[in-house]
């Protein structure tokens, strides 16, 4: 008995300053620093949730987020009671902040799935440090995304028409419409991400259960741990299932933003109808998602003392992915421009010139500047490993990617084929309030997650430590 309690009471491992961003040409840099053994990992992660009081910063952030959620409620209620006219929409700009926010949030979600599924298939062991909260981010981002198409239809009480439910009118949804594909794509994406996340959580919930002291905690974690007891026969099926889920989530994540891009690309509107949209949207989604992971990871690892597990190497790797996807996005911008000229079509040419030099030129230059030009700074290792710079650049990318969607949606709609019907879009306070409110909703959910669930995939981190190798030292 004594060994058990003394192990649990052991002091926290201090933060150990090791530069693990230097890549040994052979061998591998360590992914977990400062943790001498498996128990240190368990402890570093669980103590965040077990602390009797959350840090003050958490409370401040939570209060701000929660008041934004309240404001979101006001905006949505006002919208529903009055109509979509409370937004700055007009004819021809019938989509603006609503769909921009929808695409932005869905895109942010993509990084979570990329980290949990695609990096898993590519055997990137460093993903274990960040996958749990990136997946949580996915789920919360998809919730925020789902809000916008839900409310932009105006009469939300008819939202059930989106689903193939037999009804008294003998009418069915129109399955040739990309907006309906969205319903299925985003719905599936949310469900599968939630399942994937929960399956990953089960062993860690069991850890939380086994460490819990109070009755309520024991019951709550125990209930959701489903009685997991680490049986190797269970692990065997679990690992196969995890691999399958990763293999299913990978094409799924490609499909979701492709389907979102179809909303635009199946139309005949110049600037929307272009064949590169699907992979271009996927790359942009991963790009913006990684930026958001960075925006969350940098403060979280400071605040909750997770620098041993979310190391500088993890951040460096994420910055490299931001650089790669930023280049792919730049490639897509260039292809669009080149082909718009090459097509020889008057409207195509105009649409792109109008983006760069028309009434929304400033949005276009924010987009190119933040998405293509500033990420090039990540070619330099000094910038990739500087915490303040990477945090600042990640916010720049978040903003840039929001403007990308704004540019695509609004500039193409505002100046279409017929100059007499051109108009401009200006947001109202409800537009801006809903956008900020969604950010509040996202951060509220994320803060609750940080407080009550293990932010790091404990079992997965243990499995990539050198001590985990059964053929290693005895």
């Amino acid at each position, binding site marked *: 008995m004594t060994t058990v309690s003394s192990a649990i009471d052991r002091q926290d491992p201090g933060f150990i300053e090791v530069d693990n961003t230097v890549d040994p040409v052979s061998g591998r840099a360590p992914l977990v620093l400062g943790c001498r053994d498996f128990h240190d990992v368990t402890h570093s992660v669980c103590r965040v949730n077990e602390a009797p009081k959350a840090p003050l910063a958490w409370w401040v952030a939570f209060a701000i987020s929660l008041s934004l959620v309240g404001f979101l409620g006001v905006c949505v209620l006002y919208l529903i009671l009055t109509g979509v006219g409370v937004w700055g929409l007009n004819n021809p700009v019938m989509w603006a902040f609503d769909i921009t926010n929808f695409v932005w949030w869905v895109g942010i979600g993509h990084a979570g799935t990329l980290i949990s599924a695609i990096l898993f298939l590519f055997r990137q062991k460093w993903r274990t440090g960040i996958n749990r909260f990136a997946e949580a981010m996915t789920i919360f981002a998809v919730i925020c995304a789902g809000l916008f198409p839900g409310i932009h239809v105006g009469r939300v009480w008819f939202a059930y028409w989106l689903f193939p439910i037999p009804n008294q009118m003998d009418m069915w949804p129109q399955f040739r419409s990309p907006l309906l594909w969205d319903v299925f794509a985003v719905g599936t994406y949310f469900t599968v991400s939630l399942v994937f996340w929960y399956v990953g959580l089960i062993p860690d919930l069991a850890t939380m259960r086994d460490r819990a002291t109070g009755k309520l905690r024991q019951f709550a974690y125990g209930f959701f741990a489903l009685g997991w007891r680490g049986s190797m026969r269970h692990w065997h099926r679990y690992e196969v299932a995890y691999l399958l889920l990763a293999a299913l989530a990978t094409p799924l994540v490609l499909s979701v933003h492709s389907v979102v891009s179809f909303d635009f690309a199946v139309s*005949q509107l110049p600037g929307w109808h272009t*064949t590169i*949209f699907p*992979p271009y949207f996927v790359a942009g989604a991963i790009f913006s998602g990684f930026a958001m992971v960075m925006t969350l990871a940098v403060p979280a690892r400071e605040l909750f003392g997770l620098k041993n597990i979310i190391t500088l190497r993890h951040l460096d790797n994420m910055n490299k992915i931001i650089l790669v996807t930023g280049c792919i996005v730049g490639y897509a911008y260039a*292809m669009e421009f080149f082909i718009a000229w090459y097509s020889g079509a008057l409207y195509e040419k105009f649409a792109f010139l109008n983006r760069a030099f028309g009434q929304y030129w400033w949005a276009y230059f924010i987009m190119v500047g933040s998405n293509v030009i500033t990420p090039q700074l990540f070619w330099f290792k000094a910038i990739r490993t500087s915490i303040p710079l990477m945090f600042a650049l990640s916010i720049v990318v978040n903003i840039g990617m929001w403007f990308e969607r704004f540019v695509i949606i609004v500039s193409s709609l505002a100046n279409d084929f017929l100059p007499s019907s051109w108009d401009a879009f200006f947001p109202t306070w409800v537009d801006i309030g809903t956008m900020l409110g969604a950010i509040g909703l996202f951060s509220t959910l994320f803060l609750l997650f940080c407080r009550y669930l293990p932010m790091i995939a404990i079992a997965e981190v243990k499995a990539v430590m050198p001590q985990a190798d059964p*053929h290693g030292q005895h």
Partner: protein
Amino acid sequence: MSGHDHHTAAPKIPQSAIVDDGRIATFARAIFAAGVIALGVGLYVGWKQGNPNQFAKIYLVDFMFVLALALGALVFTMIQHLTKAGWSPAVRRVAEAHGANLRWLWVLALPVVWLWWNGRSHDEGHGPGLDLLWPWANLEHLAAHDPAEAELVEKKSAYLNPDFFMIRNLAYFAIWALLANFYFGRSVHQDSTGSEADTKSMRKWAGPAIILFGVTTTFAAFDWAMSLSPAWFSTMFGVYFFCVCCTIGFSAIAVTLLRLKQLGFLNGVVSAEHMHDLGKFIFAFGVVFWAYIAFSQYMLIWYGNIPEETTWFAARQVGAWAWLSAALLFGHFVIPFVFLLSRWVKRWPLLLLIGGVWMMAFGWLDVWYLVVPVVPSDIGTFDTWNAFAAAHADATTGLGNPAIYLILFGMLGLSIGSAAMRLSRVGLTCRRDPRIAESIAFENF
């Protein structure tokens, strides 16, 4: 991966596993010689048929096939360095050897230079010019033949003109030769020195190299394949051609390794684990990603239904071309998807060999599909799709022509022969790569 994480004892690889005992060199000479003969006969047969346009297209398809093979192998090598992969040093040499063909593949493109030179003089009877393949190269002729298209194409002449076309091609081939030479040369250099500096510089340049590769292959795809129908455009086309390269190149790497193993080489170096991973690469890029890109391009154009875009697909859905399109759908996606999905298929040498050869065959057919069909110039005169389809129901794919296969065998013989020669000369694996021990011991989960 196990306990060798922090030290790299040089692995003990038996010489017999990675050094040619003469059989590879003999094979290389034989296949190279056979290639020269087949190419000669093929060119003669093709020339004698008296249809220069068809002959030129056959040549272009076969050339693009061997080029895509080398490009696919090159990008495989570069991806391994970009990601600092630990599993692949054991198999990378084969990719490097195929990629190094880019050093000389420009030779096979010389007939294009000849066409360009011929086309420069506008005198009567100057022989065929670039417009033998690319209608934009002779706007006067195009205007006489199809004025509407000529009007559109004229707007692109700042890009689509013979001289700029040749300058671009010079740049493509120079860049590819440079990249292939660098990645093959550095890797071989490391075999003798074991220097970590080689690995470092290959990794360091991988990022810029892939960017250069992406830009050049995109525009090469526009120039050679997309501009065959000069009015048509698709922003996705470069990505599509990238998929073609992956399909053919990755399959060729797997097939080469499996053949080498059948001959008794690479025992204890390349295992079922590596083949499993290569199978995944073929499955992911050659089957699934290709299908994703092809479907997205098709569906968006089908859905948008804008005449200037749909004509390209219309030409590929009349007569026998409809069957070829369906063959691609099933042969390039549905059948290999189900076949390569299972783990045990990828780990079973004979089955993976069949899968690899199959994918190369359909990769070739894909190039044929991209290059050969011509949008009928009367397409604007029909009221309905059905009337158009009925009028062109007799369109043939021209796949029965023996010249196709002779030239294909000829070019493949030259490519495989010189890759094999290279392997025979420098050995079959990157024996002193810093991660070779990790690679040999690698296991899938």
